[in-house]
């Protein structure tokens, strides 16, 4: 086959994914004068960024002037259990405020303080009110702002176009083969650089806040092209997903409910989070309901309520309460804001939560508590990148946003994702522009490689019979939900890995009916090959991290182990299959370690340099 009969589009840079990170990266590339294309599985403006509710973290200091990038950095490192890439956490904390102000310059309308500045709200793990927000629809505001700005920047947007695999010329990226959902036809993008911004792989679990798109496409494509994945064992279970009715199980309930005063109760009416305060956070967390209430009323001397501990801690606490027989009727905990705030306040600050419960569960949250439980929400791990340029170990291949790993360490703080998208989206654009400037010689896409990718995709349609892709996907979700869940054991992980290996045979035999034109069955079948890479990577990494840290909890290895900080787990493709190995971490720069381990008093007095 000769790909001369396949549609070919040339760009300097192709961005894969049109969420916050992808669009921000594309804007930066266009700004640098590069011919830029962006592809997205869905329509523009529908990516998962739209679902982000609570806010975007940036130390603007509009509500509490004691905030600074250093405190934000310290919170991020502590939340990530110090496993974060130090430089990424530093860049993120330093640059987030500029990225937020830039959004306002592009038309975003954040909620305001009395003085007319961008308002900021409290969130788990953040010392000060730090999240710029728009009610509980911050993600919508951000993606719409980026979308409306980007359409005037000369960027080619290719909607409902899915990437299948990368094409390399030698060791360098030279293109990507994808297909149009609308027609099922293939397209080759010939490029000098590619930025992956494909999000996570939450769809590998049954109970997840993620939509159909999140099948680890970027992780799969990068892995097959020889890029490394890092920290894959750290998958965040958000503590508060809906648990009833069954059809909405997993849909997110924003942390903003707790940030604005919501409390967690068990079936006995006990505010159980007071029983789960980790030692490390004890000195900064309220230990009585009275103190927690004073904090809510704005007493700056009071410590934060335990409901605002980091997500890993809260999610495990809910799970333990349920296991101890103190769960809500549908196997979760009660999240109560009705008794804490007036109805008007709730409707104003949490309008979409109000509607979501009213319309999907027939519950009025201004009168009754919600039922919530953990839901797979986010991948801390992802494609391993250089902290400054966002380049992977494959020349010309970049990654940013959720599909890149390292920034959040073992656990991400709420609000740090939206800021991550913008900070590293921009840096990835910069990185790609610098790379292209230094590139010499022509890049080619070989017929052989392109044909191979296309044949693999059409084989699914050409079989006489085979497995139902939807059922294979359900099976994969059951395996991860059972064996690679919120708490893990070596035995279960090993079983899960076996099951995944067996499932590979089914994936090789999936079959899709009918033509390739807008065929969700075929699309689902194609996604499976990325889901299985994602699932296997998480399981293998989880198996060899023999300690409990952040979002990774091993019942057979309780607590953090000192040597756990000495390595990251790196996944890569080898001739004999997937390898997972511990790679030594470098010691942090002294000035950053000083900030991360400083006391708040030291930071607030700004006695530290850097």
């Amino acid at each position, binding site marked *: 086959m000769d790909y001369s009969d396949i549609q070919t589009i040339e760009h300097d840079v192709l961005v894969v994914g049109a969420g916050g990170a992808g669009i921000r990266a594309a804007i930066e590339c266009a700004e640098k004068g590069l011919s830029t294309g962006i592809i997205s599985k869905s329509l523009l403006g529908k990516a998962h960024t739209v679902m982000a509710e609570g806010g975007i973290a940036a130390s603007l200091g509009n509500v509490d002037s004691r905030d600074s990038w250093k405190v934000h950095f310290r919170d991020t490192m502590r939340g990530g259990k110090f496993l974060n890439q130090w430089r990424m956490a530093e860049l993120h904390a330093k640059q987030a405020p500029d990225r937020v102000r830039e959004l306002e310059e592009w038309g975003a309308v954040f909620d305001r303080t009395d003085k*007319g500045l961008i308002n900021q709200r409290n969130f788990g793990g953040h010392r000060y009110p730090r999240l710029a927000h728009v009610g509980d629809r911050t993600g*919508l505001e951000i993606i719409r702002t980026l979308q409306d700005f980007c*359409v005037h920047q000369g960027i080619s947007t290719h909607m409902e176009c899915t990437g299948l695999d990368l094409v390399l010329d030698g060791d360098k990226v030279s293109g990507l083969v994808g297909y149009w959902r609308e027609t099922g036809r293939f397209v080759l993008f010939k490029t000098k650089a590619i930025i992956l911004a494909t999000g996570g792989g939450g769809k590998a679990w049954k109970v997840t806040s993620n*939509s159909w798109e999140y099948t680890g496409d970027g992780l799969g494509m990068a892995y097959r092209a020889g890029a490394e994945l890092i920290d894959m064992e750290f998958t965040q279970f958000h503590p508060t997903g809906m648990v009833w009715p069954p059809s*909405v199980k997993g849909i997110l309930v924003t942390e903003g409910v707790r940030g604005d005063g919501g409390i967690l109760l068990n079936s006995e009416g006990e505010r159980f989070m007071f029983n789960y305060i980790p030692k490390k956070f004890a000195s900064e967390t309220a230990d009585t309901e009275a103190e927690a209430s004073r904090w809510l009323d704005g007493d700056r001397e009071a410590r934060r309520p335990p409901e605002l501990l980091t997500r890993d801690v809260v999610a495990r606490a809910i799970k333990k309460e349920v296991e101890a027989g103190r769960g809500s009727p549908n196997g979760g905990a009660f999240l109560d804001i009705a008794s804490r705030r007036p109805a008007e306040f709730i409707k104003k600050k949490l309008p979409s939560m109000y509607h979501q419960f009213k*319309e999907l569960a027939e519950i009025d949250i201004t009168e009754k508590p919600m039922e919530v439980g953990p839901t797979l929400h986010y991948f801390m791990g992802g494609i391993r990148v250089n902290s400054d340029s966002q380049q992977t170990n494959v020349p010309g291949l970049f990654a940013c946003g959720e599909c890149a790993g390292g920034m959040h360490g073992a656990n991400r703080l709420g609000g740090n994702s939206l800021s991550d998208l913008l900070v590293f989206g921009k840096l990835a654009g910069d990185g790609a522009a610098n790379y292209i400037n230094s590139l010499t010689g022509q890049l080619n896409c070989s017929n052989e490689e392109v044909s191979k990718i296309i044949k693999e995709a059409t084989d699914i349609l050409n079989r006489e019979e085979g497995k139902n892709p939807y059922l294979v996907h359900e099976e994969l979700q059951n395996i991860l939900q059972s064996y690679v869940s919120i708490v893990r054991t070596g035995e279960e992980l090993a079983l899960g890995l076996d099951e995944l290996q067996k499932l590979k045979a089914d994936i090789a035999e999936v079959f899709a009916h009918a033509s390739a034109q807008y065929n969700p*069955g075929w699309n689902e079948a194609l996604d499976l090959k990325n889901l299985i890479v994602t699932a296997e990577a998480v399981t293998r990494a989880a198996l060899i991290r023999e300690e409990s840290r952040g979002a990774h909890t091993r019942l057979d290895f309780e607590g953090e182990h000192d040597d756990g900080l000495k390595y990251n787990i790196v996944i890569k493709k080898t001739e004999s299959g997937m390898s997972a190995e511990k790679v030594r971490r470098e010691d942090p720069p002294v000035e950053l370690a000083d900030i991360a381990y400083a006391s708040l008093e030291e930071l607030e007095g700004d006695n530290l340099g850097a």
Partner: protein
Amino acid sequence: MERNFIIWRGNSKKGEFKNYTVKLEPGMVVLDAIHRIQVEHANDLAVRWNCKAGKCGSCGVEINGRPKLACMTRMNEFTPDEVITVQPLKTFPVIKDLVTDVSWNYEQNKMIPPFKPREKKNGKDHVMYRRDVERIQEFRKCIECYLCQDVCHVLRDQDKKEKFVGPRFMIRLASLEMHPLDREDRIPKIKNEFGSGMCNITRCCTDVCPEHIQITDNGIIPLKERVVDRFYDPVMWVFNKLFGGRS
């Protein structure tokens, strides 16, 4: 309990309604039923969806003749023996089954002159007060589901897509025109290119908006008034002639 569905299957050239039966679970929405049909009966049934929580606006279809989000339409809204008919948005060309080509909307958005902010007062922060932003925050809740575009008579029945951008983009225009920081003037274009005069205020768009945005009363009518003030108010007309319009 089982329920009967009639779903439109086909492409831009031909199509027909087909019957399906789905077993119900508690709390199910129409989109769940469509997904069950995909798994059990028709792997290739095309439907757009993403968030499944009424936030992304992807799954707009016509359910028993009414434009709705499939993810927010609960099965218990229907009487127990009611047959549920699902078909694609009528105003846009069908691609396949329940999926339509909505690219026309993206073209309209591109024609709208972008946000043009004034300088920052203190060089660092823009100052806007709550009362100034609340009005446009209502418009910015729009999830671009295009149900308002689907139901608009001008677009749906009269097919005057070349003359009117439709309710979605009227409220986008309103969100820009009423933005406290914006200094672009879009009023002449709103009259001449975007077709503010085409809307005859039947409020059908407002009725179907899943975000409950007062599209007509808070968005379109104020824009119409601004157009009238500029072009038809005799005092303003003389003023504009003398002083060359709005600065």
